[in-house]
């Protein structure tokens, strides 16, 4: 775990030579603890101290990169058990598995579909992250050909799954520059797999379902052979095993700084499931509970969309809530004479009111003001949701051109803004809506339709 300034200070020369640019060694140590500077600024730090500090500052779960380029997968480097303690940093990669026994044209089609799949949510484009190619044919040549085919169609990261060492070597010859994950080193082949990982400079998955001790033993063997980038497969396949084992691994890494198990984890929810729905459910559990790479056996937008949404939700920084882009939103098939409500850009506020408007049966317009992600009352109290800002938003997004009437509905909690808003928007009728989103349907029925 990270060291404090005082702990770091003990390793420094304590000469206050100022050559690092700080007045004292203690000041430099404090800055190091805050990760604001590099240790290399100190010309006199001993090698022994350097190593001790580097070991201590190594993240408890190593950051592993799979693939290269813009869409590479980076996982690991997590620091908490629960997202509310800080945040979860590196969302798990969703990878689709295909087999070298599948017909080439089907593989080509699937690779195109997955690579181009993209879905928009709260202004973000969400997509899948890669392919796992399994050597199911037991034919080395077939595997290499399949890897080449997939590589020729996509830039997404790859996982190569084969126990055929020459075939793995040949496949790596073709694609090693894009840093695929090698799956997997086992008890039987770990020395040779470690050799391949070193030769081709690629990350290596380690599979050992027997026990965490044996898994750690295998990791010790491959890291001892010089492999640095490791991904763990503890073989925990079903719902219960997955939750228990992945929780234990996260705890060992974070609470015990257990280096040998401080790596991201790969999961195969399809192997613990009996249907596509069950696979989705287990993959969802693994998003929340500690997977680093999730290999899906099936691709379907129906499953990808909810899973990508869930990943976005769980990996949102609790300190920085998702904000909606300010603007005017159509809820249902709104027309120029549909009602206009105004709200803040805190995503939860937006979703509450948008959901209620959606189910009210009234197509409507929802004007979202930039309140820096605060909810109605909080934003009002902080002076970020006032008449001036609402009026400005009305003008900025040309609301008057989109709708034929001149009525705007305020959230009931900020009824006090009515007077000021009438001054800011003299041509408009300012209506005060209900305090709670849930009552907006009833409000519209009475005040709008009636």
């Amino acid at each position, binding site marked *: 775990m990270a060291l404090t300034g005082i702990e770091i200070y003990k390793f420094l020369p304590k000469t206050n030579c100022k050559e690092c640019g700080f007045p004292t060694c203690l000041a430099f140590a404090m800055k190091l603890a805050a990760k604001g500077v590099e240790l290399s600024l100190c010309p006199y730090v001993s090698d022994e101290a350097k190593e001790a500090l580097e070991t201590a500052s190594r993240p408890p779960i190593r950051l592993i990169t799979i693939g290269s380029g813009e869409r590479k997968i980076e996982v690991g480097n997590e620091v908490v058990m*629960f*997202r*509310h303690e800080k945040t979860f940093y590196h969302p798990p990669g969703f990878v689709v598995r295909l087999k070298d026994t599948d017909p080439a044209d089907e593989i080509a089609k699937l690779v195109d579909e997955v690579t181009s*799949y*993209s*879905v*928009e*949510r709260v202004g973000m484009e969400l997509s899948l992250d890669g392919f796992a190619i399994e050597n199911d044919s037991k034919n080395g040549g077939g595997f290499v050909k399949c890897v080449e085919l997939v590589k020729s169609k996509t830039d997404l990261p790859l996982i190569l799954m084969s126990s055929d060492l020459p075939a793995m070597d040949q496949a790596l010859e073709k694609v090693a520059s894009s840093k695929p994950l090698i799956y997997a080193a086992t008890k039987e082949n770990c020395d040779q797999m470690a050799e391949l990982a070193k030769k081709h400079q690629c990350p290596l998955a380690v599979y050992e379902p027997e*026990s*965490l*001790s044996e898994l*750690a*033993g295998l990791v*010790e063997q491959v890291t001892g052979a010089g492999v640095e980038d490791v991904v763990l497969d503890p073989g925990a396949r079903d*719902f*219960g*095993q997955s*939750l*228990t084992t992945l*929780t*234990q691994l996260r*705890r*060992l890494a974070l*609470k015990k700084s*257990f280096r040998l*198990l401080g790596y991201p984890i790969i999961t195969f929810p399809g192997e613990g499931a009996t*249907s596509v*729905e*069950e696979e*989705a*459910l*287990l993959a*969802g*559990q693994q998003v*929340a*509970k500690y997977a680093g790479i999730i290999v899906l056996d099936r691709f*379907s*937008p*129906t*499953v*990808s*969309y*909810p*899973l990508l*949404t*869930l990943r976005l*939700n*769980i990996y*949102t920084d*609790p300190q920085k809530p998702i904000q909606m882009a300010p603007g005017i939103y159509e809820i249902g098939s709104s027309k120029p004479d549909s009602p206009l409500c105004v709200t803040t850009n805190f*995503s*939860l506020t937006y*979703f*509450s009111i948008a*959901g209620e408007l*959606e*189910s009210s049966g009234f197509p409507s317009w929802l004007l979202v003001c930039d309140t820096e992600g605060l909810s109605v009352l909080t934003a009002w109290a902080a002076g970020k949701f006032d008449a001036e800002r609402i009026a400005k938003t009305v003008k900025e997004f040309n609301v008057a051109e989109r709708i034929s009437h001149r009525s705007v509905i305020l959230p009931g909690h900020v009824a006090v803004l009515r007077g000021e808003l009438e001054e800011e928007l003299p041509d408009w009728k300012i209506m005060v809506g209900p305090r709670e989103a*849930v009552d907006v349907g*009833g409000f519209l*029925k009475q005040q709008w339709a009636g």
Partner: protein
Amino acid sequence: MPAVEVPTEKWTGRVHEVRLGGNGRKSVVVGGEATLPFLQFEGSFPNKPLIAIEVQDCEPKDWSPHLIAAWGDVLSDPGAWAKKAVELGADIIALRLRSAHPEEGDTGADEAKRNTDKVLSAVDIPVIILGPEVAEKDNEVLVAASDVARGQRIALGNCLEKNHRTIAATCIADGHVAIAKTPIEINLAKQLNILLCDVGLSPDAILMDPTTGALGYGIEYTYSVMERLRLAALGGDAMTAMPMICTVGEESWRQKESKFAEGLPASWGEHEERSLIWEEVTASILLNSGADIVVLRHPKTVALVKAAIDKLVSA
């Protein structure tokens, strides 16, 4: 081989056990956990989370066609609906007295009594009665339902801060359980539990509804508030140690992803399947953050989530 000693947490607290049913009716117990959800390697997880199926007292005409097709003609009869729900695996029936809503018929105490009685006589499993979520009407119909079910230990919701005295009093008088609902906030949840205990309701007669955000619609808030409540409970805070209930079906089926079949991007996938997965994933994630009861709508979700719970507890 390196020795691996898995760190376990020494929790001092435990979730209260809450019993529903009894007095001739089958009874169930929820809560009692001395560990985080399903982590039986370090503490006792004595009662598996249960599934309540939502039944409404008037035909839900605005429901998704997929729900309507799944339930068929029982939707017009709460008794028949509840019976079918039992056949499809419900542990508990959650009867929503929707017709009492001013927009849905504005029925009163008599209708509430009639429909509660219908469901109570149709099935022998425990029952939850939910009001229309309009404060004055909630009080009127929940008190009426409470009276009909006296002694059968049903759960009554929602109990909010503003009506907690009324609901607590009726729960104490008739031997029921209150569902304390607060808006996704740990301190408000604790505060309401304290208020309820202050007016004499026993901690083992309270369920917490932390307010459910569906997948894509605030689930991360509900998820983290529930994790924090459960961690506080296990840390020894008895006023956060009530079992939790989540209205998963209601929240997931009202979202755009489930509501609309047409005019949506192809990247959203197929409508019926997507609606189901939306409800299923919402349920599964909230079970992993501490839900003791999930209220569901679609029979297929019930079957799938039930199977997942069984796999989680049998590990």
